[in-house]
């Protein structure tokens, strides 16, 4: 039962990162690695706002999430948009994203130091007992927040005019522009939402465990795997994939010890890519077939 609880909490974090990532990937079709450092940055922003600026916790958290959205938008405007204007290939954008990741992670190190820090609320972290599993309030919050935010997002994307516009731009930005939708603004909004989601994830994790500048790398990879395995356009698929990954990881921890849990996640990815490569057949071959 403890395993299941741990898995749910882990899945919650993965889900937040994954959905944000999927939103962006679905829109701009390249791997936005910097998503992982936005996750970290939000946690550090919250820390800075709380500890150095002295804001009350809630305000610090809210400001940090907004900050995450701002960072995401800044990267889009400063780096990705100019590159897209030059019709840069997904590889070029991916490489630029890697560069941004390196810069931002090290900026965090320089400003805040490499030592582990904590985000602490004023209450003492209590564990409660649910069906034999011990969870903290933060962990419960992680699950709840993930579910609520993702469900809300799904509803917005499916049911609202905004969601319709987003889907249109994701399908075909030029066609959407012709129909009067401002593609650039929608893309910017997507980055804001996606980054905010990642930020929320980062802050929750920082409450739960300690934070370091490199903390974003693992959640990013797990989120990417969940998106690839679950399918970019399918939120239910991503939810399932996040659960699958989290369970596989917890099972590995139980049998082999916590050191190998990342290896298992990546083995899942490799296996999936090799077995179900249908959607990822080299672009060139697809064109020859058409």
């Amino acid at each position, binding site marked *: 039962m403890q395993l299941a609880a741990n898995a749910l909490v882990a899945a919650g974090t993965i889900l937040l990162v994954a959905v944000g990532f999927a939103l962006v990937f679905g829109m701009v079709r390249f791997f936005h690695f910097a998503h992982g450092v936005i996750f970290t940055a939000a946690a550090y922003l919250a820390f800075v706002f709380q500890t150095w600026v002295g804001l009350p916790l809630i305000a610090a958290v809210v400001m940090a999430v907004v900050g995450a959205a701002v960072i995401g938008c800044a990267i889009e405007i400063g780096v990705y948009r100019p590159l897209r204007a030059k019709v840069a290939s997904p590889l070029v954008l991916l490489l630029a994203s890697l560069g941004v990741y390196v810069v931002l992670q090290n900026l965090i190190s320089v400003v805040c130091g490499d030592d582990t820090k904590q985000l602490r609320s004023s209450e003492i972290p209590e564990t409660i007992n649910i069906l034999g599993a011990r969870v903290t309030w933060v962990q419960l919050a992680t699950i709840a927040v993930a579910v609520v935010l993702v469900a809300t997002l799904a509803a917005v994307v499916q049911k609202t005019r905004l969601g319709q516009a987003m889907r249109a731009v994701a399908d075909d930005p030029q066609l959407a522009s012709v129909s009067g939708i401002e593609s650039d603004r929608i893309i910017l909004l997507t980055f804001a939402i996606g980054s905010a989601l990642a930020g929320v994830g980062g802050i929750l994790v920082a409450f739960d465990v300690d934070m370091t500048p490199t903390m974003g790398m693992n959640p990013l990879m797990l989120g990417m795997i969940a998106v690839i395995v679950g399918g970019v356009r399918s939120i239910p698929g991503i939810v399932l994939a996040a659960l699958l990954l989290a369970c596989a990881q917890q099972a590995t921890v139980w049998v082999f010890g916590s050191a190998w849990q990342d290896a298992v996640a990546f083995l899942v990815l490799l296996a999936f890519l090799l077995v179900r490569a249908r959607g990822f057949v080299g672009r060139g*071959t697809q*064109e*020859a*077939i058409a």
Partner: protein
Amino acid sequence: MSDPLLEIDSLRKTFDGIFALDDFSCAVGRGEIVGVIGPNGAGKTTLFNVATGFLRPEHGQIAYKGRRLLGLPPYQIRRAGVARTFQNLRLIRQMSVLENVLLAFRGQPGERLGNVFFRWKTSQTTEAANRRSAMSLLGDAGLSEKADDPAEALSYGQQKLLSLVCCLAGGAELLLLDEPVAGIAPAMIDKMLSIIRDLPKQGKSVVLIEHNLEAVMQVCDRVIFMDAGRKISEGTPEQVRNDPRVIEAYID
């Protein structure tokens, strides 16, 4: 037809329930130029993709010189002697014209890793010989001054000519040309057609897909009309042009 070069038998290929090829059969004889015509979406390029190993059909068989082609990867089909061009004109644009042609030669020792290090002399000798052949081929096509220019510097028509030269450089006996004269200037069309018309004299056979009916009439010995994956009509250019089913399909 006795001893056909290429035999295609009852091909069926569907995409999401739509028949791209529907029980399609035909044969190509040695030294023949066969035209394949039909409206967009008739399955002509799909036919080429299946024949050259880029797509797997659900049913049917293809034999080239008696050898089964289905299941072979594209590079082996090419090595067997079946070359193709692409509707959207594939070339290595950043390499020079000459290098594109050199790429096409078969059996180059310098392409094998071991030879690069242990039989360098042999590789170099063959490379020099290939160079001479390549320049000669480019000369026949009127492209020799452009030999060292990057392929992307050529005009569209010249690029199409280059892709034809590449097929010839590789020593193919059967050439599948996908819209060889589409979108090029009339002077170039004539040049291209005259080269194609001469290919049977060099012992080669050609199947070409075209929308340009005049070109097809001028150059083809036989024409096949396709629609919705099926062979609707087959015969000499005159026969097919006057076939009521063909006229009807075009009006629709």
